[in-house]
């Protein structure tokens, strides 16, 4: 079974690596109207899906392997996005509507006269990237430390993760919280001096997202295949047994939770320059629940399946919300119920089943 998973894993890495190389060629190296030409809007769309896939892989690490159903992972994704958005805001400089060289537009609009402390340092790329990782990482560390030490598990943990993202959602809505309020952060101009509107940068961000997805996948894979990964699964299946064996269950959970939060944040940071905006709606509880659906559809505890689920469900979402928008939520709900009832192992479970059937038929034929 593990060899089959391996096989799927390597195919996944190969496909993503090919996409990172071939998509730029198809988008930039071919003339418009050519058969293989890929319009940049499509590249951007798929770039967005890849960021969702990173979030899904991160969620699968804690849900699929450690049984922690976090319904607040969208918060880590959004925090990473905000950190990147703050850097992009500072890059606008005097090119804003109010042409204030020191303050982002929304602060001028609110009649603020100096930059809030939380924004200090965000004109430096390295500092901003550090914050992409640090802010969500520390939140996950604090949240997880209290939750896992108090042995909050199961549905109770899911509920408090929802509460966490909902609290942040409310907080980021407020203008005086200092992150753009309802409108969030937008009107970005460039990243490290590269204009975000240019096709080459859009395509470049796609490739970077594909590489980031590969790296997150490989890191997660290394984690779950180590002895620590076995301990993680053991905690999922028989938590108290692990305690009586002398394992510090709360530390095992905390490590996976923090790593997962950081990965989700990296996905969010790559998402923002591609969609051009970050606002409080990214914290909406529904987003985090949707992420859990992607993982369930793709197959829990498979990593590759989570990524496939994220891409497939979002592709369907793009299509449905364009074609028959009023039915999308029904379709999503039906998908979740259907998968849970009939395909508990998701797409990966179906693939494995198909493979087994093939083996049986070849054996009986021989």
């Amino acid at each position, binding site marked *: 079974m593990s060899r089959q998973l391996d096989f799927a894993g390597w195919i996944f890495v190969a496909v993503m690596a090919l996409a990172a190389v071939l998509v730029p060629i198809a988008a930039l190296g071919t003339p418009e109207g050519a058969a293989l030409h890929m319009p940049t809007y499509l590249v951007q769309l798929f770039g967005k899906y890849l960021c969702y896939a990173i979030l899904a892989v991160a969620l699968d690490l804690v849900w699929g392997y450690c049984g922690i159903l976090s319904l607040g992972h969208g918060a880590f994704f959004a925090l990473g996005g905000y950190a990147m958005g703050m850097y992009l805001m500072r890059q606008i400089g005097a090119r804003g509507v109010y042409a204030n060289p020191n303050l982002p537009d929304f602060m001028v609009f609110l009649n603020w006269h100096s930059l809030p402390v939380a924004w200090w340092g965000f004109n430096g790329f390295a500092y901003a990237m550090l914050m992409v990782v640090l802010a969500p990482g520390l939140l996950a560390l604090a949240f997880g430390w209290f939750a896992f030490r108090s042995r909050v598990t199961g549905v109770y943990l899911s509920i408090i993760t929802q509460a966490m993202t909902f609290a942040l959602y409310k907080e980021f809505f407020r203008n005086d919280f200092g992150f753009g309020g309802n409108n969030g952060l937008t009107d970005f101009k460039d990243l490290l001096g590269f204009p975000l509107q240019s096709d080459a940068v859009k395509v470049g961000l796609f490739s970077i997202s594909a590489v980031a997805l590969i790296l997150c996948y490989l890191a997660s894979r290394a984690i779950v295949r180590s002895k620590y990964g076995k301990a993680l*699964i053991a905690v999922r299946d028989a938590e108290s047994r692990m305690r*009586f*064996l*002398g394992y510090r269950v709360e530390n095992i959970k905390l490590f996976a939770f923090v790593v997962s939060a950081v990965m989700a944040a990296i996905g969010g940071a790559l998402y923002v320059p591609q969609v051009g905006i970050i606002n409080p709606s990214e914290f909406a509880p529904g987003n985090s629940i949707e992420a859990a659906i992607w993982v369930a559809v793709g197959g829990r505890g498979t990593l590759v399946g989570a990524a496939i689920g994220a891409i497939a469900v979002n592709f369907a979402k793009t299509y449905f919300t364009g074609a028959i928008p009023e039915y999308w939520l029904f379709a999503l709900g039906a998908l979740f119920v259907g998968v849970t009832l009939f395909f508990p192992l998701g797409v990966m479970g179906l693939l494995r089943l198909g493979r087994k059937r093939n083996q049986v038929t070849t054996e009986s034929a021989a």
Partner: protein
Amino acid sequence: MSEDNAKLTSSLLYLDNVQVTFDGYRALRGLSLALASGEMRAIIGPNGAGKTTMMDVITGKARPDVGDVYFEGRHDLTLLDEAEIATLGVGRKFQKPTVFENHSVNDNILLAAKAPRGVRATLCAKGSAAINQNIAGILERIRLGDVSARLAGALSHGQKQWLEIGMLLAQDPKLLLIDEPVAGMTDAETAATAAMLKEIAKRHSVVVVEHDMAFVRELGVKVTVLHEGAVLAEGSLDQVSADERVVEVYLGR
């Protein structure tokens, strides 16, 4: 008092006047027990006598309201949690076999085997010939050598019980607490389990809770009878079965 102190320091496990109350129900009412190093002890008693609660207290799952629980004469177990107590060298086997069903038999032993338990240590852990040899040796002793690659969830009930005993062997604790090891086993499996436990008792101190009298007789060790959360009688099985009070509350004759 000095006599108590001597008893405390000479015992591997020392419980004195332990009382535990759950929602007004007094599960343990002044339980006192001393286990010498290297000793094997069988605990019997009717349902509700407090056998499982006693194990919960020793392993840190339940906290006594009153009373002392000392391990090796110096570790106050009432102040430690499950993982800390396990690290001191107390292993526990549950009544219902709890193994890691989604792991192979081999990996179950690997996770139980004595090794650093921290996140960094497990992340960087490398397999070695010595570890594999140790695991293979244990699998041989618990008669699961042939099924080492099978998922633990696919084992029979009796095999799961043995696997859990194997996990305790791998953990190599100083004290083993074993809750009803032969419940639901066939006679042949019961005899094999008794042999396994006797083998284990050569190098570890063991406390076995069991209902099966034939099994307790086969073990041939000192017996403690619990009743309503306290010790009713102690001695060889023949001695306690001759005790009128024991006969009255437990043997029901």
